[in-house]
C-alpha cells in the first residue's frame, strides 16, 4: 500500500524533457489542470466513501428521540446533541454483551483451529511424501470456490445428528471446514517458497521432521500465518449467514442479533447504529493495525 506513491507524483508535474519552451508551457498547463481535476475527482470519491460510515457513527451517538427531528448531519452544526447513552444502554446489559461475547467465542477458535490444521496440512503437502499427495492437493484447489451455501443443508443435518446444531462448536466447525481449502492452499504455497537447502541442512544436522516444521518452517512462514489469521478472523467475525442457521438463541453472535432487529428498522436506530458500529470497530482496528498483511492476504486470496 505504501509502495506506489513516491515516483508518480514527480512525473505528473514535470514537463516532458524535449520540445520548445512554448510546447513545454502548454504541456505544463494541461498537466496542471488535469492534476487539479484528478484531485477533485478523488476528493469527491473520498467524501462518498467516508460519509456513509461517518453517518453511522454520528447516528449511533444521537439520542433516539432526535431521530424524528432531522438527519444525523444536523449534529454537525449542533454537536451538543451527541451522547454515549446508546452505547452505555447497549453494553449495560441485555442481549448485546452476550452476542458480542458469542462472536468472540466463535471467531477465535474458528481462526486458531483453521490456521493450525492448515499449517500442518500445508507443510505436509509441500515437503512430506505420502501416497496420492499431488492428486489430493489438486482436489483441495478444486474446493477453493465451493460456495458455503452448498454446505448449509447437509451440514445442518449432519450436526443435528450428533447434537452440535445450534451450538457454538457447531458454528465453529462449519467455519473451519469452509476456511480450510483456502488456508491449506495458502500455507502450502508459502511453505514451498522456503529454499529446500535450509530444510535439508537441518535434516543433515539430525533434526526430526516435526522439529523442522515447528522451529524452522513455521517461523519462516510467519507472514503467511499472520495474513491467514487476519483473513479467517475477519471472515468469521463478519459472518451472518452461517450463524443465522447454525447458531441457536444462546449462541447467536452480534451479526445475527442485529439482523433480528432489522424488522423494526427506523424505530430502533438507538440499537442498530451503535450495534453495527461495535461490530465493525474490531475489523477496522484489525485492518488498521495489520494492513500490510491484509493487502498480502487480499493478493493471495484473489484466486479464491
Amino acid at each position, binding site marked *: 500500500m505504501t*509502495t506506489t506513491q513516491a515516483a508518480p507524483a514527480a512525473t505528473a508535474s514535470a514537463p516532458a524533457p524535449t520540445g520548445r519552451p512554448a510546447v513545454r508551457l502548454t504541456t505544463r498547463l494541461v498537466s496542471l489542470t488535469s492534476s487539479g481535476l484528478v484531485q477533485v475527482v478523488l476528493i469527491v470519491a473520498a467524501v462518498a466513501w467516508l460519509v456513509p460510515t461517518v453517518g453511522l457513527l454520528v447516528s449511533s451517538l444521537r439520542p433516539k428521540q432526535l431521530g424524528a427531528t432531522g438527519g444525523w448531519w444536523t449534529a454537525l452544526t449542533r454537536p451538543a446533541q451527541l451522547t454515549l447513552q446508546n452505547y452505555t444502554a447497549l453494553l449495560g446489559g441485555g442481549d448485546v454483551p452476550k452476542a458480542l461475547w458469542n462472536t468472540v467465542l466463535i471467531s477465535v477458535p474458528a481462526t486458531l483451529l483453521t490456521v493450525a490444521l492448515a499449517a500442518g496440512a500445508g507443510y505436509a503437502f509441500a515437503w512430506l511424501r*505420502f501416497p496420492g499427495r499431488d492428486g489430493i492437493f489438486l482436489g483441495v484447489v478444486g474446493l477453493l470456490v465451493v*460456495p458455503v451455501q452448498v454446505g448449509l443443508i447437509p451440514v445442518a443435518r449432519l450436526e443435528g445428528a450428533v447434537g452440535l446444531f445450534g451450538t457454538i462448536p457447531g458454528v465453529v466447525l462449519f467455519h473451519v471446514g469452509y476456511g480450510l481449502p483456502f488456508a491449506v492452499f495458502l500455507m502450502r504455497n508459502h511453505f*514451498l517458497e522456503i529454499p529446500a537447502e535450509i530444510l535439508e541442512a537441518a535434516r543433515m544436522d539430525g533434526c526430526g521432521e516435526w522439529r523442522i516444521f515447528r522451529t524452522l518452517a513455521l517461523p519462516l512462514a510467519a507472514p503467511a500465518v499472520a495474513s491467514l489469521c487476519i483473513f479467517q478472523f475477519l471472515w468469521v467475525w463478519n459472518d451472518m449467514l452461517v450463524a443465522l442457521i447454525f447458531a441457536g438463541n444462546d449462541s447467536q453472535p452480534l451479526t445475527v442479533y442485529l439482523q433480528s432487529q432489522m424488522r423494526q*428498522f427506523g424505530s430502533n436506530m438507538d440499537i442498530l447504529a451503535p450495534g453495527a458500529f461495535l461490530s465493525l470497530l474490531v475489523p477496522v482496528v484489525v485492518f488498521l493495525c495489520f494492513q500490510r498483511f491484509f493487502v498480502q492476504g487480499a493478493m493471495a486470496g484473489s484466486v479464491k
Partner: protein
Amino acid sequence: MSLRSPRRGQASGGALRRHRGLALLLVLPALLLLGALVVYPIGYSVARSLFDASGHRFVGLDNYGAAFTDHATLTAARNNAIWVAVAPALVTAVGLVFAVLTEKVRWATAFKLLVFMPMAISFLAAGIIFRTVYDADPHRGVLNAAAVAVHDTFDDQPSYPGARPRPGVGLDRVGSGDVTAPAATHVVLLPLVGVQPDTLPAGARTARRPDAGDGVSGTVFLDFVPGGGGHPGQLGPGKQGLPGIEVQLRDGGRTIATTTTADDGTFRFAAAPSATTTLVLPAADFAAPYRGVDWLGPALVTPAIIGAYIWIWAGFAMVIIAGGLANLPRETIEAARIDGAGEWQIFRRITVPQLAPVLGVVFITMVINVMKIFDLVYIIAPGPVQQDAGVLALRLYLVSFGGGNDQGLGSALSVLLLLLVVPVMLLNVRRFRGSRA
C-alpha cells in the same frame, strides 16, 4: 513452483516411513473435515435435490423444474444475472480508475486506506449503513437529503400542497388541478384555504390589495386568520400573502402572460381585463414538494444494492490493480510520453492492455463473489421489496430455512449455485497444473 526437493530421494527408508506417519498425522485432520463438511455435502445436495420437501419421495428433476418455473426463483435468477453482468465490471472499472488516479496525488496512501477499509467490515454493518443512506425520508437518508438540497437549489419555487380555492367566491378548480378565476375586473382576489402552516415561506408578508392600474392585478392570499375572525374571501389583518405562486393570464385557452406573486401575494399583468381572459394558478403551484428518489422501491432496489457493493469492493480492486500497476515496466509509458502521447491515449493503449491479466483476476474474483451474494440483499432490501431484489443465495436460504422448509428445492438451488462456479473451479485446477509443469 516445484513440488519436490531435489535431494529428497536420499532419505533412508526408515526416515521415509516416519515421514509418512507424520504426514498422515498432519494431513488427516484437515482432510477428514474437508471430506465431511465440503465434499460429502456436494454429493448429499445432488442426491437430496432429487427428493421432495419431506425427503421421502423421489421426484427426479422436479425440483429443478420448479426452480425454473417458480416466479420468485426466476426473479432471483434474473437479478443474479444482472448482478453478474453489472457489478464485477463496475467494481473493476472503479478500482482501475482509482488505482491510476491515485498515482498522481500525494495523499494516495490516505485515499487507499479510506477506500479499502469497507472491505474489512461485514456485509451486515455495510447493509445497515446503506439502509440508512438510502432511506426515502430526506430527514433520515443522506442521499435523498442531498438530492432534495440540489433540487431546491435549482428550483426554489415554493409550493403549497393541499391548498384549494375558497369555495363560493368565483374560483374554480378544473380537472387538471389548475385553479382558475375570470379576469374581468382590474383587481382579482384569489383566496386560498388549506395551506399547511409549515409550507408558508419565511418571507411571506400580510396580504395587500394591489395598486389599481390599467392591467389586471390581484392578490393570492391565505384566507384564514389564526385565532379566527375576518371575512371569508376578503383581505384583512392577519391574512398572509402567498409568495412565489405562478400566475398565468390566459385568453381563450392560450397563455398570454405569466408572472409570480410577490411576498405580499400581489401580482400584476400589463394586459387589460376582458370577458374572455382568465387567471390560472397552474397545478404545479399545489404539487407536493420534491422528496427525493425511492431508492429502495421495487424499481431501483437492485441498482441501489449494487451501489453499496461497489462501495465495499472497489478498494479491493484498487489495491490489487495498483499492485499490478507498480510492477508494470515504466519504459513503454515514458517512451510514449516523450513521443507526445496524451494521458488518455497512454491509459487506453498501454496501461489497460498491460494490466489485462490483473484486471481479469479481479473481475473473476468479483464474479464468484457476486454469484453468492446474500447478506447485503437480505439486509438492505426492506421486507416488502425483498422478493423484487431476491437473488439465488437468498432464495436458497428462504426456501430451506426461512419458512419455506423445502430442502429438496433448496438443495436443487445449491447445486445450481455450485454449477455456476464449476467453470472457475476447472480454471483454477488447470491454472494450477499449468504452473506446476
